[in-house]
C-alpha cells in the first residue's frame, strides 16, 4: 500500500513546493553573500567604528566560523532528536508507559536549567571547547522535541491504531506507517523550535573556547568594537532565519503531503 500512498501526493505537491523553497533559498543566499562579502565591506563597518584600528574580524574566516557553528548545532540537534524522539516513542509504548510521567517532567526540567549555568557546570567535567556547549544545547533543546513527540503520538486517534491492528499490522508497522507519519508535523514543529533556539544559544560557546559565530561577538564586547558584534550577530540571525524558513518549507510540504494523499490513512485523522 505504500507506493499508493506516496505517489499522488508527490505529483500534486510539485508546483506549490517549488514556491515553498524560495524563501529559505533567499535567506541562504543572503547568508552566503554576507559570509563571503563582509571582509570586503570595510567601508560600511568603518561607519560604525570610525576610530577602531580594525573593523573586520580577522582572527578566523567567517565561513570557518559558520561551519563550526553549524557543526555544533547539527551534532547537538542529531543527538537531541534521536534522544527526544526515541524517548517519546519509548514512553508511549506499552512497555515504557511507566516512564511517561517522569520523562515529561524531566524534559521540562531541562529547560529550567539556564544554558549558561549548564555550560559552566559542564566545563569542569568536559574541559574547555566544543563538548560543553554541545551538552548545554542538548539539555536546552530536549524539551520542545520531547513535548511535541509526546503530544503528536498521543493525539493519534485510537481508532486509527485499532484499524491498523485489524489490518494485520505489527506494532512496529503501526508505529512507522501510521503513528509517526501522522505525528510528523507536530514533531517537526518541536525540532524547529529546538534548533532555532539553539542556533542563537550556541554563540555562548565562544565564552568557553568553542570557536563559532559567537567569537566575533565576544571579541567585540571585550574590545569595545561594535563592528565585530554586528558581524557575528548578523550572521547568526541570518543563519537562524535560513534554518527556520527551511523548516517552515518542510512543514508545509508535509502538510500538503498529508492533506493531498487520497488513499492515505492520514487524511481521515486530520478531519
Amino acid at each position, binding site marked *: 500500500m505504500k507506493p499508493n500512498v506516496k505517489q499522488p501526493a508527490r505529483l500534486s505537491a510539485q508546483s506549490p513546493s517549488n514556491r515553498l523553497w524560495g524563501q529559505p533559498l533567499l535567506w541562504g543566499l543572503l547568508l552566503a553573500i554576507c559570509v563571503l562579502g563582509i571582509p570586503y565591506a570595510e567601508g560600511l563597518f568603518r561607519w560604525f567604528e570610525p576610530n577602531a584600528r580594525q573593523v573586520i574580524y580577522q582572527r578566523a574566516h567567517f565561513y570557518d566560523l559558520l561551519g563550526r557553528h553549524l557543526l555544533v548545532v547539527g551534532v547537538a540537534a542529531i543527538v537531541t532528536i534521536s534522544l527526544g524522539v526515541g524517548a517519546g516513542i519509548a514512553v508511549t509504548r506499552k512497555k515504557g508507559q511507566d516512564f511517561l510521567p517522569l520523562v515529561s517532567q524531566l524534559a521540562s526540567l531541562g529547560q529550567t536549567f539556564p544554558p549558561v549555568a549548564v555550560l*559552566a557546570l559542564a566545563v569542569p567535567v568536559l574541559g574547555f571547547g566544543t563538548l560543553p556547549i554541545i551538552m548545554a544545547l542538548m539539555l536546552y533543546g530536549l524539551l520542545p522535541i520531547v513535548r511535541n513527540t509526546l503530544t503528536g503520538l498521543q493525539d493519534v486517534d485510537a481508532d486509527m491504531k485499532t484499524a491498523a491492528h485489524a489490518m494485520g499490522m505489527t506494532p512496529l508497522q503501526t508505529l512507522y506507517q501510521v503513528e509517526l507519519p501522522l505525528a510528523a508535523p507536530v514533531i517537526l514543529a518541536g525540532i524547529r523550535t529546538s534548533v532555532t533556539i539553539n542556533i542563537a544559544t550556541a554563540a555562548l560557546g565562544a565564552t568557553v573556547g568553542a570557536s563559532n559565530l559567537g567569537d566575533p561577538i565576544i571579541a567585540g564586547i571585550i574590545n569595545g568594537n561594535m563592528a565585530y558584534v554586528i558581524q557575528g550577530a548578523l550572521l*547568526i540571525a541570518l543563519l537562524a532565519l535560513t534554518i527556520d524558513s527551511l523548516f517552515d518549507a518542510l512543514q508545509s510540504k508535509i502538510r500538503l503531503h498529508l492533506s493531498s494523499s487520497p488513499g492515505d490513512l492520514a487524511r481521515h485523522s486530520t478531519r
Partner: protein
Amino acid sequence: MSLLDALPTPRLGRGKHPNVVLVSLSVTMLAAVWGLDAVSVAANRIVQATGVSAMDAIGWPGVLLASLLIIAVGGLAYQPSRTNYWAALGVVVLILALMPFGLMVAGHFLIDPELPQARLGIGAGYWVLLFILMLCLIELRLKLALRRFWPVVILSSIGLVWWLCASLWLSDLALIQEFKARDRQFIQAALEHILLVSVAVSISIVVGTLLALLMRRFVKLQKSAFALLNFLQTIPSLALFGLLLAPLAWLAANVPILAQLGVSGIGNTPALIALVAYSLLPMVRNTYIALEEVSPDTLEAASAMGMRASQRFWQVRLPLALPIMLEGVRITTVQAIGLTAVAALIGAGGLGTFIFQGLGQAAMDMVLLGALPILILALVVDAGLGALAEVLRPGGVR
C-alpha cells in the same frame, strides 16, 4: 506448552505491578556509588583535582550503608503500595539528609589538616546520585499524587540540614572555601542578580500586558508586533547585549540628563533593556493567548447575566486567563535568570560575574559558585510560580 500458558493470565492489580521506574533508578544509583568518583581532592584551587572513589572516601561502612538504603528504595518500589511509597519517600529523604555527612567523613579522611589550601571537590558520582534522588522524589510525588506544596516542605527541610552542615562543619569543601573567600561579594552579586531579574520581569509584565491588550484592540498591530518580537529572539542574547553598548554610550555622552539617570554603555542599563526585549515575546504571547482563549460561551453567559463590558473583563476574562498569563511570567523569569548571567559580560554584575571570572582564571570552584546558585534560583522560581499557577487555576487546587 505447559498448562500455565493455556490459562488466562491473571490481571495483576495496579498495586502489584513493580514500579519499574524506581527500581531502575535505584540500580543506576548503585552503579553511580560503586562506579564513579564520589569526591575529588586538590592541593589548592588551581591544580587539577584527583578523583576518589566512594570506597576510599567514606570507607566500607559508609558504602554499605548507602548501598543498603538505595536497595531499600528499589525493594520498596518492587512491591508498590501507598505505604511502601511513603516508606520509599522517607528513605530518599534520609539519603538526601545523610549526603552532607558523607562529605564530612570524606573531608576527615582525605584532607590533610596541615595543608590549609587543600580542598574537597564534589565528584561525578555524587552529582549523579543527587540528581537521581531528585528524580525519585518527582516520581514518588507523582505516584502519591502529592500537592506541589509537599516537595517544597521536604526540600526546604533538607536544604536546612545541608545549610547547617555547610556552615558548621564542611569547611574543607571547595565550594565553601570559595564562598568564604568572597562572601560579601557573593551576597551582593546574588542580590544584584535577583534585583535585575525582578525589575526586568516587572517591566516586561507591564509592557507585555499593555501590548497584548493593544493587540486585541488593533488587530493589524498583531502580526507586525509578533514578527518583531520573533525577530528579536533570533538575535543571540550575547549579541543583543553587545549591540546596545555603543548607542547607549553615545546617548550617555551626548544627553547629560540620561547620564545622570545612570544610563551608560556598560552596566545595568543595556542589560536591563536586553532582558526586557527578550522577555517580551513569551510574556506577550502567553498574555494574548490567555485572553483570547477564554471560551465565548462563558463570556456570553456573563453578558446574559447583565455584566457590563468592563465587568466582563475584570470578573470573567482576566481571572480565567490568569493561570496562563502566570505561565508566561514563569517562562520569562526562568529565562531572565539565565540571561542575567550572560549580562555579567557587559559589566552588569550578578552571579554570572563569578562564572566568567572563574572561567578566565580556570578556577572551576569559582565557576561552580556562580553557576550552582543560578541553577537553584531557576529551579526555585520555576517550582514556586508553578505552584502559584496551580492555586490560581479556576476551581482552585485539584
